[in-house]
């Protein structure tokens, strides 16, 4: 008899405890449905809470710019949150100025949706769409740079400005169990809007670039979304200086081809700098264009040519070369794309040529 009471009582109490935990879990962990109100009632969504605002919005096909995949290292995903966000997180602090904080700007990749939100999103973000592309071709441009031409689905086009970028998604591979995304500038011209060309350079141990270089072949599908970015031609001047290194050529190429196609009356100087000849590509392509257009000058430069390069072009750091070629930059704008070190050095050299920092454009991430 005692065995029965024992078994019964332990069972009953276990069941009671289990039920209490289930109820508590339902009550506590279920953030429930949250409402997101965008632009004062313009769009209202009911979403499942518990995820970052960035991913919640992209689940609703509203894409906010992000270059780092939600790791709080690019600062691009800022949006005004009028109501609903909790206290400012330490991960957000480096990217929000005093003024931005006063206006309730937050990093959407860090803010979690736990209750109803009222947010303001700029109109241009609604132009951003998602595309499932197919790889039309992959070209090995240098030992560590590949060019990808991604064909858009039929009937779909991307309306972008020359110089903007797309976000490129990986799929899980090898030991990597999650999908990530990174930003790459568009290399083809806006009129060529049935495909997107990207130039991707292998970053040592980079998650996305390793995926692009080792896992993709022609015919594979790649998810991208965009377009994003504030790097495009302003053109309030008579002449522009464009400086690129490595894969930085992509947006510059897009701008150059766009200017020539539309017959914009502006003089362009394109400085392309690497260390040795093996890192150069598209040399003939640009020399060809320079030969056929008076308003385009192409200056490739090597900072340390190897003997076998037989290089008779410009030699020196790209900053030194720019210094030699430009005297007075007072009616010029600067367009830079490359590594942060190169960009900083070029901003300095352009400043010495009377091109102020406000007239020098580059992607700040």
């Amino acid at each position: 008899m005692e065995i029965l009471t024992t078994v019964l009582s332990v069972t009953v109490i276990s069941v009671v405890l289990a039920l209490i935990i289930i109820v508590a879990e339902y009550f506590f962990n279920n953030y429930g449905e949250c409402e997101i109100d965008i632009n004062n009632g313009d769009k209202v969504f009911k979403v499942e809470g518990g995820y970052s605002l960035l991913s919640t919005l992209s689940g609703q096909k509203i894409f906010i710019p992000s270059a780092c995949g939600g790791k709080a290292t690019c600062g691009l995903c800022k949006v005004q949150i009028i109501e609903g966000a909790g206290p400012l997180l330490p991960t957000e602090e480096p990217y929000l100025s005093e003024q931005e904080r006063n206006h309730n700007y937050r990093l959407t990749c860090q803010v979690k949706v736990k209750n109803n939100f009222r947010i303001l999103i700029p109109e241009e973000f609604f132009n951003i769409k998602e595309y499932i592309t197919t790889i039309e071709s992959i070209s090995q441009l240098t030992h560590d740079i590949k060019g990808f031409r991604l064909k858009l689905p039929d009937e779909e086009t991307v309306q972008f400005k020359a110089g903007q970028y797309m976000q490129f998604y990986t799929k899980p591979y090898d030991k990597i169990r999650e999908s990530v995304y990174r930003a790459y500038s568009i290399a083809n011209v806006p009129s060529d809007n049935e495909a997107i060309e990207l130039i991707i350079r292998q970053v040592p141990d980079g998650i996305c670039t390793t995926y692009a270089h080792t896992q993709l072949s022609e015919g594979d599908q790649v998810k991208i979304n965009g377009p994003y970015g504030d790097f495009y031609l302003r053109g309030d001047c008579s002449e522009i200086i464009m400086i690129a290194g490595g894969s930085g050529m992509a947006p510059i190429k897009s701008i150059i081809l766009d200017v020539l196609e539309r017959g914009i009356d502006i003089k362009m100087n394109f400085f392309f700098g690497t260390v040795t000849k093996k890192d150069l590509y598209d040399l003939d392509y640009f020399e060809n264009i320079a030969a056929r257009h008076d308003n385009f000058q192409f200056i490739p430069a090597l900072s340390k040519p190897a003997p076998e390069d037989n290089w008779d072009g410009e030699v020196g750091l790209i900053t030194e070369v720019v210094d030699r070629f430009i005297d007075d930059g007072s009616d010029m704008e600067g367009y830079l794309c490359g590594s942060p070190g190169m960009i900083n050095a070029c901003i300095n050299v352009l400043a010495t040529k009377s091109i102020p920092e406000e007239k020098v454009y580059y992607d700040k991430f």
Partner: protein
Amino acid sequence: MKQSPELKLIQENMMPGTLSAHGFIGEDSRNLTDILRADAKSLKQTGITQEAMAEKMQELTDFGMRGLGRPMPMDEYFEIEAEDYMGKLPCPFQDNAKVDKRQTRVRRLDTGATMRWTDLNIHMIHEHGFFEGHGSTYRLDPAQLARFLRMI
């Protein structure tokens, strides 16, 4: 020794695919605590502090950066090539640090030996005494590094 939950979280950050393609633990089967302790001991035997070592590495990297990727001979011992890439990496130790993506390759002009490190290596050594696990892409051995940098 059991690992505290905080370090367990950090070790998960170091797995392949979270912050870098191959992660920072490599083939090492040890706990993060054990890796840190073993390297701390190794470092202690060299007599050099983690801060001093990281500062020397930073000195070489800064010199190399003047070349924007071009190999720069610093003196009769070191030739340095430093190359950076767009974007920043968050430090896996959850200290909110965002580190530049930069690789520094150094060649000893007298012995021909080469070593390389990233800015994240410098940060993790300076702040956390972490030299990465055995078999990881940028694993640095404290004693070998100290000899290479001519600090012992």
